[in-house]
């Protein structure tokens, strides 16, 4: 009875409805609430006052002096830059450690690969907090690393290597937490790599490094980009590692958001910081889409060559 041309579209819509509902309910609605809160006024006892105010965003870069003039202040900008710096560093190190692992796995006989992948994903089954606490035991005073030094008498009873509560400890914690999500996408693209191309490159008198730079890297690029994005984003918002391993001495974006909601009772500002964090994430994803498109075009060109 109903025009039959509409039916497939309707059916498609109905089929997608559960997915749309889940995305709408669990992603769009919370983000919309956060965006709304970031434009409201803070209630001094926590919560919000239903009155429009851009104050939360102004507060990010400026503070009001006693005469109510806006004065530039760099505090929060430094926190953003530090979070960015640490996230970039952790991502690069994850890449440096993760790429050889992924390459190694990709070169294994097919029946062994799954075991290696399985081993890589095992830590994911344990709570991240517990895994981070484990590093306190490893790096801490009288911890696993210090014990041999103590037995050999290099470290006295009250001496320490001072590994804990440093940026070093934070980066170790971040690499450990996120390396599986770097390895898996790189492995996925290396697995598809036709190793005859590597051999051909060697036959054409290319050095190992040249082969690596001009053949392997370009072909693995989608995986490298995906892995880097997947590591970079959670590192940017991380607050467990900076708090537990770094001693919470320097605020990160993640800790700043948590602080605004839990302690400072400034929900709009917390929401605004979260929106700024989200903006960075969206920028990264846009860049990824761009890079993926270019990589696609490149590998297409290679195939034609």
């Amino acid at each position, binding site marked *: 009875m109903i025009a039959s041309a509409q039916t497939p579209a309707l059916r498609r819509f109905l089929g997608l409805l559960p997915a749309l509902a889940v995305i709408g309910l669990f992603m769009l609605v919370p983000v919309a609430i956060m965006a709304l809160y970031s434009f409201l006024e803070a209630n001094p*006892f*926590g919560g919000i006052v239903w009155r429009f105010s851009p104050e939360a965003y102004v507060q990010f870069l400026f503070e009001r002096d006693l005469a109510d003039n806006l004065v530039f202040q760099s505090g929060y900008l430094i926190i953003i830059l530090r979070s960015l710096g640490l996230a970039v560093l952790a991502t690069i190190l994850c890449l440096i450690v993760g790429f050889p692992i992924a390459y190694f796995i990709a070169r294994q006989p097919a029946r062994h690969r799954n075991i290696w992948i399985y081993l890589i994903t095992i830590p994911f089954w344990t709570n991240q907090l517990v895994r981070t606490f484990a590093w306190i035991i490893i790096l801490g*005073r*009288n911890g696993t690393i210090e014990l041999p030094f103590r037995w050999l008498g290099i470290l006295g009873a009250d001496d320490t290597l*001072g590994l804990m509560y440093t940026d070093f400890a934070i980066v170790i914690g971040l690499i450990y937490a996120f390396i599986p999500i770097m390895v898996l996408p790189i492995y996925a693209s290396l697995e598809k790599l036709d190793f005859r191309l590597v051999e051909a490159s060697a036959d054409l008198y290319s050095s190992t490094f040249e082969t690596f730079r001009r053949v392997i890297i370009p072909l693995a690029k989608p995986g490298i980009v995906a892995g880097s994005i997947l590591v970079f984003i959670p590192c940017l918002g991380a607050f467990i590692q900076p708090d537990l391993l770094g001693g919470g001495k320097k605020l990160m974006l993640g800790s700043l958001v948590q602080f605004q909601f839990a302690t400072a009772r400034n929900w709009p500002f917390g929401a605004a910081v979260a929106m700024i964090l989200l903006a960075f994430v969206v920028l990264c994803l846009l860049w990824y889409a761009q890079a993926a498109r270019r990589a696609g075009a490149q590998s297409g060109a290679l195939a034609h060559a």
Partner: protein
Amino acid sequence: MRLLVASAVAGLLALSPNAAWSEEKLFLYNWTDYTSPEAIKKFEAETGIKVTIDTYDSNETLLAKLKAGATGYDVIIPSHNFVPILIDEKLVQKYDAKALPNFANVEDRWKNPEWDKNQEYTAPFHWGTTSVAYREDLYGKKLESLGEFFKPGDKAAGRVSVFKTPEEVVNLAHLYLGQKFCNPDPAEMQKVQDLLLAQKPAVNTYSSEGMNDRLINGDSVISTQWNGYALKGRTEGAKSGKIVTYAYPKEGVIGWMDNMMIPATAGNVENAKKFINFMMAPENMALQANFTGYAAGIKGMEAGLNEEMRTAPEINAPADVKIVFSWACDAPSQKLIDKVWTNILK
């Protein structure tokens, strides 16, 4: 005998028309894990009043619930800094704790407290302190001043732990600098900020968890600490010969006290008074203290306390210690605290 009196009173109450349905009930709204089941059982046996307990996990929750119009609670136990807020919001009623027979047991220093100057709305419950704890064996001497925490010498440099709660840390700084809490004066807050920034190179963590772990394994020599946790740290450390000591610096310590109050909407006011009177009896408060591990301002509790509670220096603050109570700060001074904190951690 007491049971007889209680039932006689209950019988009399039953004569008043609208009490008929409510005389045997009491609704207690208290912190989680903060009510001794033994004490409640005893109260029920003595008075025949059936107690129903509901719990909250923060003063903010209690306030929000009462403000949202929750009725039916007969006794609530808020912290001292929320007492003025509850009174201002007209969420609680006067009940003259001084007229209750067991009020005579209250230690003099807890009578007419700052937050209820005429003792019209409150009766004291548990109290505790915030100060610093230190590894006496590593430090080599008694810690006598907060200056040793804020400006640590060689023994403690790089091994100082500080809470992650700005209010408590800023209050400790106020104590050391001799300033008043919730300070709205930017010049005074600048001094607090300078003090904390100068301390920062000597700090290993800003955290409100794991204080005892770090003290016992030697990561920290001095750490901000709550008295109840310090007691646990001392007993834990003693097992491996480490000496964790809770300090009572000459500048004083920060105090908190929970109070028994009756909400404005209480349906069983007489039962609420009976309960409050019951809890102020030393033998009953001792049951409660043994359960929670906190001190209470009631005289003559010693006989009922267990050995650990009776002797712990963390719980039994010396009588001459200055205890300064913290306040819920107003918006302007709270903003300054947040600003100082961001400047320290940025």
